């Protein structure tokens, strides 16, 4: 293969349009051709940077409301988990006050925890009973909500990715990318290990203003390696989720941020990820 052909294949690869049959040939060329190798990693970052820079126009709330009136169909209910979190906090506070527990009292955390457990159980029940989405999303939402409600978002708390990333070594048999997005106003808060469907996954925690973004990462080699795959955005119960794959790992970000901001987070995260070439095996 010459470099001209490789260039076209790189484009197809970036667009997730390169069929599995031709990937090995491209891998082989990239291994021996430093120029194309550089072009390959630059192409991916250039594209992610551009996607982060271009505006995703969103309709005004006013328009969405008008649309809801104009179109036939039932009104959507408000999201359950968000309001449940607020209820949990205010109930915990109310109970603590009623019991006459002051700020420095050692009993207050216990009361809050007890109330939180009750509400978490109720919330989980509500979510599972009325759930009509694949289990994976349900588990992610529950994990996200619980970690926030129980105040155990991070086991390693640091905004330095050189502290967070190595923390996972020896605890997990895969190494998640941990991007430094502080320049993009998505500072890293830390990480921990979470269990989803009896599987240990990495949880990375980022912030955006007052919002929390969690990125759950697990190995996913199930599909033929397609490199820059299209990512999968959806909203569930008021939360935005987005999933993408990179380097044999699946990343799912969840937040109560609106979808375009979470998509922006994804673009910045991917742009800062170390590029993974087509696998050579």
């Amino acid at each position, binding site marked *: 293969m010459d470099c*001209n052909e490789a*260039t076209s294949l790189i484009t197809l690869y970036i667009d997730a349009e390169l069929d599995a049959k031709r990937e090995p040939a491209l891998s082989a060329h990239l291994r021996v051709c430093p120029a194309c190798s550089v072009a390959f990693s630059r192409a991916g970052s250039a594209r992610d940077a551009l996607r982060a820079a*271009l505006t995703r126009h969103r309709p005004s709330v006013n328009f969405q409301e008008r649309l809801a009136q104009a179109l036939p169909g039932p009104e959507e209910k408000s999201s359950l988990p968000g309001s449940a979190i607020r209820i949990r906090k205010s109930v915990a506070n109310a109970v603590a006050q009623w019991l006459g527990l002051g700020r420095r009292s050692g009993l207050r955390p216990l009361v809050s925890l007890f109330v939180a457990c009750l509400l978490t159980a109720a919330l989980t029940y509500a979510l599972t009973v009325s759930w009509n989405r694949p289990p994976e999303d349900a588990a992610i939402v529950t994990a996200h909500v619980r970690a926030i409600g129980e105040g155990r978002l991070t086991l390693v708390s640091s905004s330095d990715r050189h502290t967070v990333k190595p923390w996972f070594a020896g605890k997990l048999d895969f190494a998640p990318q941990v991007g430094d997005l502080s320049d993009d106003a998505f500072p890293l808060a830390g990480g921990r290990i979470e269990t989803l469907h009896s599987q240990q996954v990495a949880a990375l925690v980022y912030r955006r203003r007052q919002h929390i973004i969690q990125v759950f990462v697990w190995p996913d080699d199930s599909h033929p390696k397609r490199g820059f795959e299209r990512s999968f955005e959806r909203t569930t119960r008021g939360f935005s989720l987005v999933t993408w794959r990179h380097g044999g790992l699946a990343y799912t970000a969840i937040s109560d941020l609106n979808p375009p901001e979470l998509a922006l987070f994804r673009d910045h995260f991917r742009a800062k990820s170390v590029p993974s070439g087509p696998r050579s095996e």
Partner: protein
Amino acid sequence: MTDARRFKEFASPNVDAAYNLARWLLGNDGDAEDVVQDALLRAYRSFDGYRGGVARAWLFKIVRNVAYTALAKRRGEREVVRLDDLDCDTDPNMAVFELNPEILYGRSDAIRRINGALERLPLPYREVIVLRELEDCGYKDISMILDIPIGTVMSRLSRARRMLSAALRDLRESAPRA
């Protein structure tokens, strides 16, 4: 009213994307809102004829058709696009974006410039960029939405990427961050 409910479930997740496409095509919020509203009503009416497949792509096709009708009315004539110039790409290789990603991080001047460049890109190039880069459509979907062969999708995308890359070429990396 199961039909209405089904349609709402189908359409709701795609409204934002439909608006984004319309907004990039029409250039202002008011026209984009009108187009999205018309397109959704039209989609609802022909919902029976929707046989599954990629939901967004089907909706995008409707949005685009309504948008072009609106554009034609606005100008009072059909936009004449010279197809020979359009799809004749002398370089047979498919281009990717050639720009330094660092230039786009946090630099509002670069971000303004690239968005301005996309706004000014001729419609046939603009729409492939919006569909591919902003809405994550595959070549096959773009081919269906624009009603052009896949080969044309690829060459138009190539040319559009070169044009956008050129817009940032003279920006100096050493310029201060805005």
